[in-house]
């Protein structure tokens, strides 16, 4: 099936010269003497490399920290941070799916993230009618996505009558209405302003990711109630298990979104971004396409919110529904690359790495603890201007100022790397990484 698919694609591309003659020669060779497994592997070498890198990361991290101590810890984000990068990265990707591909800035996207988060926590607390407290997490997660998608259809059918900055403002308005409502709704918990936590009486078990109903194929996530695995030489703690299980869901969601982006539907979204008037004039009912894309995007935002609440076992209005949550998704998209699907995840990874590196305590260590530990006494005592020592200087400039430096980084990105990290890489390679990397590697091998 894959062979047939890949051949069909390469045949069309060859005929219309989508790929250069040099690649054609190699592909002809593929058709004759290579199995489809190798061809498929080459088409996806970039994906495989990224997944492998994320796969070995926690092991590599513990290995390097064990060997290098504070130095490695200062530069590498902790697996806990990486788990947060996964679920928030998924949210940022879903934001980019609508904003980067159709050009409609969904500034109220936090509404869908919050919907997902609140939904799974309320289900676990038995507060959602028809759904018992012991509903499997996988089921409530998918339902959270569906609910978010339905909400998107409602919000979108009003908002898509507008465009540009008005669209951004009206979606923001909807999200803020929801924020205020959920902050003051006494049904949710005794103190809705502080959010809702999963009750340990009603739902003592951790949230499990896997195939619902099959006990052996489920692993619980979360720092306290997560499962631990010992298998051969591997010894994975709750943190690592959460990392892998959340990462797995995010990977599946990424491939689902990527499939949509590269489908005829995805091309229509790009056409809408490029020139909506012409897209209408060639015969697309753009309103329906935008609404469909918005619902799909909201579904994945809902799943991301569910993962977020699942790991933390709680959700609050300020960390899920507030407009700055959408702002973070926008930040991640711009740093990672607007209109590139994977970009926002890398953008958020970059952002979190910088924050952790500059944070004042940094449980895994950061720049400041590193300097405190490793700078020789003579340097620390050295006098700078105005009687301030070097040691005092680094305290003043580094202690708790991560957001300040991050702001500067953000400005630099907008000005100097307008395409974002992934956009820049694509520009350098002359195409998407998945397409260009195999040829690039082949050149290196020669």
């Amino acid at each position, binding site marked *: 099936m894959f062979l047939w698919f890949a051949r069909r694609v390469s045949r069309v591309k060859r005929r*219309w*010269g989508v790929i250069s003659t040099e690649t054609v020669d190699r592909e002809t060779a593929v058709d004759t003497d290579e199995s489809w497994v190798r061809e498929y592997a080459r088409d996806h070498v970039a994906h495989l490399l990224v997944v492998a890198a994320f796969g070995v990361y926690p092991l590599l991290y513990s290995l390097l920290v064990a060997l290098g101590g504070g130095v490695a810890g200062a530069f590498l984000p902790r697996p806990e941070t990486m788990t947060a990068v996964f679920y928030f990265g998924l949210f940022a990707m879903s934001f980019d799916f609508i904003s980067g591909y159709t050009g409609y800035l969904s500034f109220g996207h936090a509404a869908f993230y919050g919907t997902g988060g609140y939904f799974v926590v309320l289900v676990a607390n038995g507060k959602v009618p028809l759904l018992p407290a012991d509903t499997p997490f996988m089921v409530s997660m998918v339902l959270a996505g569906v609910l978010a998608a339905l909400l998107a259809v409602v919000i979108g059918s009003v908002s898509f009558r507008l465009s540009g900055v008005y669209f951004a403002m009206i979606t923001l308005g909807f999200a803020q209405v929801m924020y205020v409502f959920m902050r003051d709704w006494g049904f949710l918990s005794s103190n809705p302003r502080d959010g809702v936590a999963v009750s340990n009486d009603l739902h003592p078990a951790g949230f499990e990711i896997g195939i619902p109903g099959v006990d052996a194929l489920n692993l619980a996530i979360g720092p306290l109630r997560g499962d631990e695995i010992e298998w051969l030489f591997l010894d994975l703690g709750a943190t690592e298990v959460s990392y892998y299980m959340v990462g797995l869901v995010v990977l599946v969601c990424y491939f689902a979104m990527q499939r949509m982006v590269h489908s005829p539907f995805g091309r229509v979204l790009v056409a809408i971004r490029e020139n909506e*008037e012409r897209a*209408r004039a060639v*015969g697309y009912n753009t309103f329906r396409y935008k609404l469909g894309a918005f619902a799909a995007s909201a579904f994945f935002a809902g799943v991301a919110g569910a993962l977020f609440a699942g790991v933390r076992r709680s959700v609050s209005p300020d960390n899920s529904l507030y407009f700055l949550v959408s702002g973070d998704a926008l930040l991640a998209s711009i740093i990672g690359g607007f209109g590139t699907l994977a970009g926002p995840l890398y953008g958020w990874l970059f952002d979190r790495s910088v924050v952790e590196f500059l944070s004042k305590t940094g449980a895994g260590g950061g720049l400041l603890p590193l300097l405190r530990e490793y700078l020789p006494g003579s340097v620390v005592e050295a006098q700078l201007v105005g009687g301030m020592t070097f040691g005092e200087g680094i305290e003043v400039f580094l202690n708790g100022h991560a957001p300040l430096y991050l702001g500067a980084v953000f400005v630099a990105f907008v000005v100097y790397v307008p395409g974002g990290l992934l956009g820049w890489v694509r520009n350098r390679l002359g195409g998407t990484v998945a397409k260009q990397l195999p040829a690039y590697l082949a050149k290196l091998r020669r």
Partner: protein
Amino acid sequence: MLRTRGLTRRFGGLVAVDHVDFELGGDELCSLIGPNGAGKTTFFNLLTGVLSPSDGAVELRSDDGDGWREVTGASPAETARMGVHRSYQITNVFPTVSVLENVRVAAQADADTGRRFHRNVGTFDEHYEEAYGILERVGLADRAHATAENLSHGAARQLEVAIALAGDPDVLLLDEPNAGVSSESVDQIVDLIEDVATDHAVLLVEHNMDIVMNVSDRVVVLDRGSVIADGPPEDVRNDEDVRQAYLGGYEREEEGTV
């Protein structure tokens, strides 16, 4: 193919299109001319559904012969799906994607496969084939992989027509396909217009009178929203009202040169 009955559009007190009765035949190349502000573009917008008429009706007859269908008030997407496609006076394409993709996405709209979200776009061979065929027809095949915004003005005008053609139109509305094209490249576009007119009903807006007189089967003159002349090119050329509209009060002095 396409006709209007008493088509009227008012903007406040201004009547941009005033009770226009017009019919375009099946394989006709009809030119629509008129001084600036005569209402030509408004008329186009009424035909394609960008604007809805204040009064009157637009009707369409498809090839299968099931009579006239009223399409008044249909949206641009709906009129396009019914076979009315247009090109724009000011180049209006998808700028950052390839020339091929510009045409392919329009062919995809016609085939109504845009809702497929689970299969790779590369498996829809037929759209690539159709798009490539159209690019060959308009003479852009060698530029298929260029980014649309990097095309020269003349090539962009060809692409403009190619996108309209990709919708497999019954009626093709061309809004000044020659706008801004240098005199050397005009012939290329004129050849293209004559070529597409062989198998489509074409309504052409054009300012260059030489082209209008050469290519048209019929010329319709619009002035201040009304049709003031309608007939073969020679007749319209000698029509007194048309001279009045174009030349105002100066026709006596200009008589010798026109």
